């Protein structure tokens, strides 16, 4: 088993920095475990493993989001390290998925630490405001990027540099039944993403559409794809919009005086 070359480590660290900025700004997707695993796989020369690890982790964490600033496990760092360990150990994608999750859970604390550190910059900005120093307030917010980046880059850098020793140690200890269990866990864990989404979407009100989507693929899986189901979902959504519009139009005609501005 060969370790990770220095060039790849530097590449992955640079990627981590960009991904963290993406995560707290435009969220175009570079921060997701999907991109993280695929890019790690590509850099380490094993794209297929990256694709499987990334897709599985992504589907599993679909509904996991930082609503209202809550901390969620750091699947970005988890995906990078899980994929890297899976490839350098040659144990396969399921192994990577199995590792990415506990690593992500472990690093949850780093996110909390980063967010707490930023209180310091808030206080600094508050003091600047007392003096009308708007440049100081601007500086404080820009410096706030540092804890975010460091909280992800430090674990990734350490994990990649000492990864070989970690992976060897882990392989020597873990029994076969545990690996089998971990693989099955990897297969059923996407259920979490679905369940969280169902909690977040109004499923009690719109459960028929959920059933339609399920039946399309469960019974028609040979011919139907998720894209087909999404198109049917889109058609149903469009029908709903039309119905609402008609209802509003009728209601507006019934009431002669409609105050829009109140």
């Amino acid at each position: 088993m060969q370790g990770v070359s220095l060039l790849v480590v530097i590449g992955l660290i640079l990627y981590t920095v960009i991904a963290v900025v993406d995560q707290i700004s435009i969220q175009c997707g570079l921060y997701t475990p999907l991109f993280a695993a695929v890019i790690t796989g590509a850099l380490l020369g094993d794209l297929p493993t990256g694709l499987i690890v990334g897709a599985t982790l992504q589907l599993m964490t679909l509904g996991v989001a930082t609503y209202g600033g809550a901390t969620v496990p750091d699947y970005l760092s988890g995906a990078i390290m899980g994929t890297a360990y899976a490839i350098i150990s040659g144990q396969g994608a399921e192994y990577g998925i199995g590792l990415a999750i506990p690593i992500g859970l472990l690093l949850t604390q780093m996110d909390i630490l980063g967010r707490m550190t930023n209180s310091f910059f808030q206080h600094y900005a508050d003091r600047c405001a007392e003096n009308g120093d708007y440049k100081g307030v601007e500086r404080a917010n820009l410096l706030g990027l540092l804890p975010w980046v460091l909280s992800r880059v430090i674990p990734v850098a350490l994990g990649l540099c000492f990864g070989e020793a970690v992976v060897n140690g882990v392989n020597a200890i873990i029994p076969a039944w545990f690996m089998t269990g971990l693989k099955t866990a990897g297969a059923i864990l996407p259920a979490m993403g679905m369940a969280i989404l169902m909690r977040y979407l109004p499923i009690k009100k719109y459960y028929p559409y959920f059933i339609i989507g399920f039946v399309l693929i469960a019974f028609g899986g040979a011919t139907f794809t998720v894209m087909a189901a999404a198109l049917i979902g889109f058609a149903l959504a469009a029908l709903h919009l039309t119905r609402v519009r008609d209802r509003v139009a009728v209601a507006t005609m019934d009431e002669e005086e409609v105050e829009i501005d109140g």
Partner: protein
Amino acid sequence: MADKNQTGIGKLEKSDIKKVYLRNLFTIQFGWNYEKMQGLGYAYVIMPVLKRLYSGDPEKMKRALKMHLGYFNTTPAMSHLIVGADMALEEELGIEAEEAITGLKTGLMGPFAGVGDTLFIAIYRAIVFSIASYIAMQGNPVGLIIPLIACAGVLWIRYKFTCIGYQSGRKLATGFADKISPITEAASILGLTVVGALIPSVIKYRTDLQFTMGEVTFALQDMLDKIMPSLLPLAIVGFSYWLLGKKKVDSTKLIFVLIGLGMILGNLQSMLTFVVGIF
């Protein structure tokens, strides 16, 4: 509107709106902290406006800085509407409208977060990233383009939000939550259809459990398939959904439950063999 660089009222210029838009896009969460959340970021985002309006008056600048450093938190994509409306109010009324501005910010950030988290986080991810992952799972990295294209669309929407918020000021901003509700409903329908479809296509777990009775071997999965395909994945999702409804279960705890379940399900056959071996 004689000069096209002017925004209409006169004090702010079009370049100010663009600056605020770009700052909002990238930096509103840089200074996120547990005390004021996006408060520090908000002050940074609105700063081009403050500089334009108050840089000649230190007292007004102090008041404005203190006001905008206060607690703020909403879905970043929706914040553009609030910032836009704030710009309009401040340009028109100045810092004298302190209460109105704070009221507007505080009053809208909650409802907008509700709508925005559903639209721009839950539904957006369910659709965009599930399709991208689905394609990736087939071994094709081309699906990763989908989130990037969708993101370009969101960036455009966010720019429009800035303009809409600014142009309509407070009036539209308060009525916005009502107007958007049918769209939220339609988006939920689309999202739920996709979630339903994802369960059988993504969770491929099949049990390998077999019972041998004399000469005949029954495979449990074959029996389950006769009832309904993907019954086990649906049951596992249903179980997870039910657990999440419990007060003390969050997603992190659910992971442990599912890993435990995986450990049991993955070793079920050997456990059975072991038990049978005892007798």
